Each structure stands twice: as structure tokens, then as C-alpha cells.
């Protein structure tokens, strides 16, 4: 049986086999970033406030390019995604890593450029009152589609596809991710294949930021819906082989990768790249290693401490503002909340006591700035508003005024027998834990004691019905990154009707506070189709939230992309990041 020489030869065979394997396997052609630091392309500046919805020029249609004659090498770019898409069907997911692929293989009626201004894609021009696209009363919006639109299989794309997408969204048989804003449409019709007329019950101001984020091909999915009775199980959601973007879906292997190849039939001309290869790498450290080794050309959601490392390795970091601002919400519910938090002077004291400028410089390496309101860097914020400055003396004075004093010398203020001590909660992200530690110290310096709590995301964001800590009023001050319906300023967080309760467990007003004046302003802005009027309303809204510290901003939360300099013509939008993917090229 086992003789010693046999074992020896077995060992030799194992070692030999590993050498053979090492020799045989083709290491990939090095796609490394060049060793010498190359001239990085001009970094895109932080995106400007989104412009008004003016009628913009339709994009210059690219000349149909000649297919390259026998290309020596396919132009394949590799993107690294730290989260795998759950589904590719636009109706069934809100996952950012899925929706940002729409500009590759699906199509929005209009997307947004690097200044976050709307840019027509399927329509000839953005509808407005001047060009007749929006009716005088603001309730009817008419879209005029281009005549040359085709799906990737050659079938013409018409207004019928829009109506089909609407019907599928609203059908109770489809468990879609979101029905808004289509649930606000009263009537939708297509008088001819290139015209779509939508009539809303009330004038709907946020239409430009919320409508038509992806289309379903009627000729493929109508038969599926008819035979299955639902689109929930459609194959197309996993493999959308028919699309309307510059690229076409090719393959998606669970957990591993997804491929999108150039759409030869794209109505705006074939893209320059041949293929986009998306690799799923869930670990942040692995993503950084892969980017540095050149195993990926683009990565996103980079942690701030990793950025200098990547820049040293030759990658360019592009910053784009997507409407997110990190900040504090306060539990204002008189029944559940801490009495101090309900006093506006105490909240203002918290604002003055925290040095948010230093926080962004130290923890965020100066790559972003403190946030003043939820609408920073948009035209909807009152220009006189700037973030609360750091003034601990003023904080102490305000607390004294509010009646919170430290009578027993334990370092914590009290009033009527209650300590000024409350719970500050957030998720388990590293940057947030660091912020908690810093803020805890700063508040302690003015006599406020905070207890820190951290939760996993799926628990932290759970609703009232599921016992979520913020929703059920267990946290006095809760932190997360919030966004309105960017680029639209609409938000639901302060509506009285959204206060969660046993009758309405799904409510999203977790502060639990009804300010009738603020509520009325929010109801008003949703119907103001005229930009100037809406802007004025938001000036009032932002000022009120700022003065009463209903929300306290920590920092503006931009998106960062780490890009290999061999990718050319790159631009990013805060709303539709890959809006010009058709022009991207490889050196």
C-alpha cells in the first residue's frame, strides 16, 4: 500500500503539479495602472446646483460610426461593484447599484448631465410651459418622442411602451418597488406613437426628477404578463436581453460578474467601448487592492481614509454631488422624547457645540464641507443660510437660558430632576462611529451627556411596525445620510401625515412632530409647477428647519468614483452617473 517512496513521489507530484499549473495558467494581460504617475484627466468639479428645467437643446446625434475593421483587441472596461444588483428590472428595485446601470442598457426619457441639469434622451425637448409641454394649469404634461427610437432588437420604441410601463407599475399583481409618481397620474394616453399625454390629479411639481426612470419593452413583457398574470417572475428581470441604451445586456452570473456589450442598433450611434464588465467585490479592502492592481478600472463608495492610497497608486478620484447630506434628526415627539430635545434652544446649543468644520477636515480629509440644510448645493436653499458656527460659549449660554444647569457638579446639566443625557444612535459604518466619538466629547464639554448606540442597517432603518429603533422613538438623536427626491427638493420627512403610529406603522416622519406651518408649506411646494414660486416656498422651508433645528447638518455627502486614467471622456452626473457612457473610451 503506502510505501515511503510512494509518499515521496506523491509529494513531488503535488509540487510539480503546482508549478505546471503556475506555468500553464495565463495571467491576464496586465491592466495595471501605469507605474509612473500619469497626468490625471481634469477632475470633474463638484457638480453645480441643478439648473431650472429650461428647454435644453437635444444632444447632438453622433454620426453612426463605422464598425472598426477586425479590431485587434476589444475595448473592455472593468467596473467594480461592492454590491451586486438584486434585479435589473427598473420597476422592482431601488438599489442604487442597479439603477445606475440604466444609462447603459435601458433608457430614461431624460437624464441629467454633470451639472445635474436635465438632458433630453427619448424626448425631443424637456417639456415646459413655453414650448407647450406643460399646460397652463400645470396638470397636463405632454412628451414628444423622437422618431428614430428603437429597442436593441430593432422594434420601434413608442409611447405605447411608456403606457405599458405605467400599467405594469400600477397593476396590483406586480409587487413593484415603488408606485410613485405614477400613482398621481389621473389619465395617460398616446394620441400617436410619438406623443404621450399625462394628466395629473393636481399640478405635480417634482415631475422632472421623478418620471420615467426606465422603460419596459411592451413587445417582450406584455405576453409574459398575460400568461403568468404577473411580472414578478419574469426572466427579463434577470436577463434583460432587450434594452434601449448604448449597451445591451449580455450575461449575469450570480455573485460573480455581469457583462454589457455595445448595442450596434443604438439610435444615437454605437458607443466607443465594446464591453462593460462589472465585477462584484463585496469587501472594501479587496476593492481597493483590486483597483490598485489594475483588476478594475472604476470603483465607487470609497472610504475617505483609502482615498490618498488610491491617488498614490495613480487613480483619479472624481467627486460628484448627488443630493445626500449627512445630518441629525431629533425625536421631537412630546410623549416619547427627552424634554430637553424638544426645546429649540437646546437643539441650537447642540448645533453651536459641535465643530463640524473640524470634523470634515479631520475625519473626511477636507474632501467635503459641512451641510447647512437638506437642500445644500441646490437652488432651493435660502442664500442667507450658512452652517451653524462652532461656538461652545454660546452653546453654554443657550443651555443656561433654557434652564439646564449643572447644580450637583457631576459635569452633566439637569433641570427639574432630569439629567441632560440622551441617546445618540446610528449605523455601524466606521465614519459614523468616529463621528459619534468626537461629538460625544464635544457635547460633554458643554455639559451634555450622550449614550452611543449602533445598529446594522436593516435594523436601523426598520419601520415602526418592525420595531425599528429610530421609528419607534428609542433614539433621541439619530444620524444618517438623507436625500430629497434629488434633483427635486421634495421630501416627506416632515409631513404630519407621515408620523408613524399603530394605525400607520409605515410612516416616515420619525421625528414624530407635527408643525402645521411647515406641513402647509410642504403641501404647497408639491403643487407649485412654477420654479420661482416653488423656490420662494423652499426658502421659507429651509429657513424654518434651520432656525428651529428640526434637522442639523453634519456634512455634504458626495459620491466618489475612483477611476483609472486610461478611461477617457469620463463625466459623472449626481443623478444619472453614467449619462455619457457612450462617449467613454479606453486609451
Amino acid at each position, binding site marked *: 500500500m503506502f510505501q515511503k517512496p510512494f509518499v515521496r513521489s506523491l509529494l513531488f507530484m503535488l509540487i510539480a503539479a503546482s508549478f505546471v499549473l*503556475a506555468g500553464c*495558467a495565463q495571467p491576464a494581460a496586465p491592466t495595471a495602472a501605469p507605474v509612473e504617475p500619469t497626468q490625471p484627466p481634469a477632475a470633474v468639479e463638484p457638480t453645480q446646483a441643478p439648473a431650472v428645467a429650461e428647454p435644453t437643446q437635444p444632444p447632438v446625434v453622433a454620426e453612426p460610426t463605422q464598425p472598426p475593421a477586425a479590431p485587434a483587441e476589444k475595448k473592455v472596461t472593468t467596473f467594480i461593484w461592492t454590491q451586486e444588483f438584486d434585479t435589473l428590472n427598473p420597476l422592482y428595485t431601488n438599489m442604487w447599484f442597479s439603477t445606475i446601470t440604466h444609462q447603459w442598457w435601458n433608457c430614461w426619457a431624460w437624464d441629467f448631465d454633470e451639472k445635474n441639469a436635465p438632458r433630453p434622451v427619448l424626448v425631443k425637448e424637456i417639456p415646459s410651459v413655453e414650448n407647450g409641454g406643460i399646460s397652463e394649469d400645470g396638470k397636463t404634461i405632454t412628451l414628444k418622442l423622437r422618431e428614430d427610437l428603437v429597442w436593441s432588437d430593432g422594434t420601434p420604441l413608442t409611447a405605447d411602451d411608456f403606457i405599458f410601463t405605467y400599467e405594469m407599475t400600477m397593476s396590483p399583481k406586480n409587487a413593484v418597488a415603488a408606485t410613485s409618481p405614477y400613482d398621481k397620474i389621473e389619465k395617460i394616453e398616446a394620441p400617436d406613437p410619438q406623443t404621450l399625454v399625462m394628466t395629473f390629479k393636481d399640478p405635480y411639481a417634482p415631475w422632472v426628477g421623478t418620471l420615467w426612470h426606465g422603460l419596459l419593452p411592451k413587445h417582450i413583457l406584455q405576453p409574459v404578463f398575460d400568461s403568468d398574470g404577473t411580472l414578478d*417572475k419574469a426572466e427579463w428581470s434577470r436577463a434583460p436581453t432587450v434594452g434601449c441604451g448604448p449597451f445591451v445586456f449580455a450575461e449575469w452570473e450570480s455573485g460573480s460578474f455581469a457583462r454589457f456589450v455595445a448595442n450596434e442598433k443604438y439610435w444615437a450611434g454605437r458607443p466607443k467601448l465594446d464591453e462593460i464588465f462589472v465585477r462584484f*467585490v463585496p469587501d472594501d479592502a479587496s476593492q481597493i487592492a483590486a483597483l490598485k492592481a489594475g483588476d478594475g478600472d472604476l470603483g465607487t463608495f470609497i472610504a475617505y481614509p483609502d482615498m490618498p492610497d488610491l491617488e498614490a497608486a495613480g487613480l483619479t478620484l472624481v467627486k460628484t454631488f448627488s443630493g445626500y447630506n449627512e445630518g441629525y434628526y431629533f425625536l421631537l415627539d412630546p410623549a416619547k422624547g427627552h424634554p430637553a430635545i424638544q426645546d429649540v434652544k437646546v437643539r441650537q446649543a447642540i448645533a453651536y457645540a459641535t465643530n463640524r468644520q473640524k470634523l470634515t477636515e479631520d475625519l473626511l480629509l477636507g474632501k467635503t464641507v459641512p451641510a447647512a440644510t437638506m437642500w445644500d448645493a441646490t437652488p432651493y436653499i435660502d442664500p442667507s443660510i450658512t452652517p451653524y458656527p462652532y461656538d461652545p460659549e454660546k452653546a453654554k449660554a443657550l443651555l443656561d437660558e433654557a434652564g439646564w444647569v449643572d447644580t450637583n457638579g457631576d459635569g452633566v446639566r439637569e433641570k427639574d430632576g432630569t439629567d441632560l443625557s440622551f441617546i445618540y444612535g446610528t449605523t455601524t459604518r466606521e465614519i459614523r462611529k468616529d463621528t459619534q466619538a468626537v461629538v460625544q466629547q464635544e457635547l460633554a464639554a458643554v455639559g451634555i451627556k450622550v449614550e452611543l448606540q449602533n445598529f446594522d442597517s436593516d435594523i436601523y432603518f426598520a419601520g415602526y411596525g418592525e420595531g425599528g429603533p429610530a421609528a419607534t422613538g428609542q433614539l433621541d438623536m439619530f444620524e444618517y445620510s438623507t436625500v430629497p427626491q434629488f434633483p427635486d427638493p421634495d421630501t416627506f420627512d416632515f409631513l404630519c401625515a407621515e408620523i408613524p403610529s399603530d394605525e400607520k406603522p409605515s410612516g416616515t416622519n420619525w421625528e414624530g412632530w407635527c408643525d402645521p406651518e411647515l406641513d402647509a408649506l410642504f403641501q404647497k411646494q408639491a403643487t407649485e409647477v412654477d420654479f420661482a414660486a416653488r423656490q420662494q416656498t423652499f426658502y421659507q422651508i429651509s429657513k424654518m428647519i434651520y432656525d428651529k433645528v428640526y434637522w442639523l447638518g453634519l456634512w455634504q455627502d458626495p459620491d466618489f468614483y475612483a477611476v483609472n486614467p486610461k478611461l477617457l471622456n469620463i463625466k459623472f452626473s449626481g443623478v444619472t452617473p453614467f449619462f455619457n457612457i457612450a462617449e467613454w473610451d479606453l486609451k
Partner: protein
Amino acid sequence: MTRYIIRRLLQAIPLLFIISMILFVLMQNMGDPLATMGGRTVTKSADRERLSRQLGLDKPIYVQYLYWLIGNDWAKADLDGDGIPETPGTRKGVLRGDFGTSLLNRGVPVTKVIGDRLPNTLLLMVTAELVIIVGSMLIGIYSALNQYSTADNIISTATFFLYSLPIFFFALVVMYIFAVNFKRWGLPYLPTVGMFEPQVGKTPAQVAWHMVLPVATLSFVYFAAYSRYIRSTMLEAMGKDYIRTAKAKGLPRPEIIYIHGLKNAALPIVTVVALDLPFLLGGALVTERIFAWPGTGRLFLDHLARNDTAVVMGLLMMIAVAVVLFQIVADVLYAWLDPRIRYK
């Protein structure tokens, strides 16, 4: 023996029921699947209500368990929100082979979600297990035969050192050295992440090349466990009387070590390996995550984080069934290998 096996299998059934109930209750209390459906923002209240109704999440926990077990095609659900259940369900339940559809990958059957990843996991885990077993055997036998020699001490120290390293640390260190830095220094380098290079395609050579670092990570850390075990059982076996007899009879040394020594020492190892095998199905959570290997370990983490009860239950039940089966296999194997053991 047959009666023993049948008895064990029958005992397993109520056990599996209890396991499934406990796991289901734990899953339900772990968080809110709707919490993360808003994407990067909080899920809107109107969507929360509608989805809760459409996905059957508003039902009490025992009803949800019942639907999971025996399906809901005998009951009606209220899909349009008017309060009147009108649509018959489509699920057949686990007892009829339908594990449901994923909440995360909407509409995809759980069996497909898991089935897509299982081959990758098995490839990685079985290879790693083989490397671990062969390596540990060689190390353990050598250590036992040369007890307390310098080489034995060095090997023991090295394996314990590796065993005490957190696996993610080891994984990242080898990745940085052999993949990132070797490339930078112009040496032949290993890939960082994934199963293959996109430019080359998914060839066996590519997959084998990409498997080197993950397998190395898994094996090096676990060499210590098995090798120490083999070392101690070998020492015990080699000290027995029948070995002394064999030596006295003048049998060749390899025959003494392997046929008389190892064969007896290996019995407990067989049991240990048989009990470890079902956990291969669960994949290596940390290693798969770091090397972006598309296996069931990562699947479990991703779906657990988003509270996808159907897929997590499917994975857990698969492992539970495998554990129960392999325990029976281990007992039977032990009895088969050791004639002294007989079960009633």
C-alpha cells in the same frame, strides 16, 4: 444496521421540523426586509404598506411559517388592497419541494439562487478540504514520528501561529503580498479577486489560478487543527502493544506506520472529517467575501443583511439536512471501519 439507519432517519424528521421553526422565528426577528427596499433612502410609507401586503409580510409569524412549509395555494391573498382576499397564492411550500422565491432577487426561485452558487462553493471548499487533509496528514505523521525534534517544534509553532491569525487578516496579507506587490515588483503575480479574468474568459486554467489564494488562505489556517489531532492519535496508536508486536516481527517500517498505525489512528479523523463535510456547503464566509468568490457563504451574508427569509432558510435547511445525514454517515462509517463497534 439497516434498522439502525432507518431509526436514525426517522428520528431526524421531528428534529428538522424543530430546527426549521427555530430558524424561522430567529430570521423573522432579525430585521425588516422592507427597510432596505428604499435603496439609498428610507422606504416610502405607501410602498411599505403595499409591499408588505403583496409579499405576505403582514401576516402573523405562524401563518408565514405555515405558508413556507405547506404553501399558500390553498389560501387567498389580498393583492389590490381593498381588504378582500381574492388572489390565490402560487407557493407550494417546502414539503412539496417549493422553497419559495427570493425577496431580494425578486421572482427568482430559491433553488436557483442557491444552485447558481453551490458549484463554486463546492469547488473551493472540496479543494481546500483535500489540501487540508493531505497536508495535515503529512504534517501530523511527521510530527508524531519525530516527536519533540527541532522540526516538530518548528512545525508546531508555525501551525499554531497560523491558526491564531484571524482569517481575514491572513487573506488580505496574502492578497497584498502575492497579488498587489508582486505585480508592482515585476514578479509573477497572482490575481486579486474573482474567479477569472474577463479578457481571458472562464477557463479551467483561469479558475484554478484564481483559486490559489483562497485555497491557501483556508488551508494554512486550518492545518493546525487537523495535524495536531492526527499527531495525537498517531502517537496513541504507535504506543500500542500490537505495534510493538509488529516491530518485533520485523515488518518493514512503512507497513508498520501506515497499515498498522495510521489505519487505526485515522478512525477518529474519519469521523471528524465526515462531520465537517456538511459545513462545506455553507462556504467560507470571510474568504469568499474578501476574494470575491461567488459562493454560498457570501450569498448567506448578502441575503441575511437584507432579511431575505426564503433564501436564508433554504441555505440553513440545506446545511441542517446535510449535518443530520452526515452524522448518520459518520456513525455508520465508524462502525464499518471498526469491527468492534456494533449498533443495535
